């Protein structure tokens, strides 16, 4: 059996006393594209944030390329901060709100991680950033600040910033939800291209058509659990659970 690139085992997460992830198991192999769908509050964002260690979790394990992240050992001991920073760079995250650094140009947004985390010389970093900005169709906007870019353009820069770090897994959290409808496709097309090139992705989305087209597998989350998982044709055409059927009906797919 091939070793999964991302493996989530029995993940539990509480906010205060409220358990929002109640034992999630999920595993991705290199090149897999997996979409997570589910109603609001079902824990999709929280799951991605745990994988990126922006949230701590209380039980379970997450392994990336065989390495346990965030914690170590059976006693769930938290790792050192520098260790966590290194492990975080193994995943790339794209946020709903873009979160570009407003005081830096598009190019600098992308080179920051390369020069400060990967300690690359400026020239090499610029070359890599230039390449990725070209890939997302932003070559002519390298010197612009985020405030001078449209939402769709900002999100494409944010994607370039994440993929330039050469992560093993890319995480996308509803990256088109904050965009005007006419800007959604330019961003989805960039993600599709990356998926077709074999990038491993875990994405949360409300764009059912996109999830259907791009995913190898789709995961339906409900109340902190994975309720159903399978290839998009099966999941969307022949939902097993009542909840998924209702969810699909309400999202007009």
């Amino acid at each position, binding site marked *: 059996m091939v070793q999964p690139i991302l493996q989530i085992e029995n993940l539990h997460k509480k906010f205060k006393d409220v358990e929002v992830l109640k034992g999630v198991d999920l595993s991705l192999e290199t090149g897999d594209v997996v979409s997570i769908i589910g109603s609001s509050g079902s824990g999709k964002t929280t799951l991605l944030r745990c994988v990126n260690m922006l949230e701590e979790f209380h039980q379970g394990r997450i392994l990336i390329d065989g390495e346990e992240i965030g914690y170590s050992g059976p006693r769930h001991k938290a790792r050192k901060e520098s260790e966590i920073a290194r492990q975080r760079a193994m995943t790339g*995250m794209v946020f709903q709100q873009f*979160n570009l650094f407003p005081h830096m140009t598009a190019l600098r947004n992308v080179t920051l991680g390369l020069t*400060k985390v990967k300690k690359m010389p400026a020239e090499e970093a610029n070359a890599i950033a230039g390449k990725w900005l070209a890939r997302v169709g932003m070559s002519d906007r390298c010197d612009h600040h985020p405030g001078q870019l449209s939402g769709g353009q900002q999100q494409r820069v944010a994607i370039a910033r994440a993929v330039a770090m050469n992560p093993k897994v890319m995480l996308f959290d509803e990256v088109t939800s904050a965009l005007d409808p006419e800007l959604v496709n330019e961003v989805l097309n960039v993600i599709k291209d990356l998926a077709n090139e074999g990038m491993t992705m875990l994405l949360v989305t409300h764009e059912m058509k996109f999830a259907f087209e791009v995913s190898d597998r789709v995961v339906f989350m409900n109340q902190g659990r994975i309720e159903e998982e399978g290839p998009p044709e099966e999941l969307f055409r022949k939902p097993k659970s009542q909840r998924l059927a209702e969810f699909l009906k309400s999202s007009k797919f």
Partner: protein
Amino acid sequence: MGYTLNFGAVWRDFDLLLSGLGLGLGLAIVSIFAGCWIGLVAAFAMNSKHVLWRRVASCYVTAIRNTPLLVLILFSFFVLPRLGIRLGKVESFTVTLSIYAGAYLTEVFRGALLALPRGLREAGLAIGLTEWQAKIWITIPIMLRNAFPALGNNFISLFKDTSLAAAIAVPELTFYARQINVNTFRVIETWLVASLMYVAACYLIAAGLRFFERRLAISR
């Protein structure tokens, strides 16, 4: 009122007034600089998750902000030497003004930090920056830009506050004005000129700050 204005005596010592103005500016610059460092540290302490840090920082801010500056100046000048800390009057005043500025800037920075979207720090962490790197490259630069107008206002206040240094005979503008006043009895002329010098300096500083503010502004 048989008073005829005669600026001759004041002009004769104008270079003294100018040097006093220069010293005041210098003191304000050093203090805002030092105060920024103090304020940054204390602002992060105030937002820290450790109670002790929060307590220490808020005690500092409360104590300093609730004491009149003149009292602080006299306290450092007269009390510290008794405790074995010997500083010249200029040094004593600079330290006092820096600590005073730090308390106000702590509040400025604390507010500016709270106003930052938390997603920016997280985006920095997500590309693999450590907490420190995220502070240095993302949080602090953005926060300082946002705080710049308030920082400018604080600087102008500090500059005017340097006049209180006259109380411990630091030779700044107010000190010289009082000296000229005593020596020449040209009361109106002396204080008129001194006031106008403060006004002109503050006006120019404000204009310069507005210029920088426009250049620093993050376009959105």
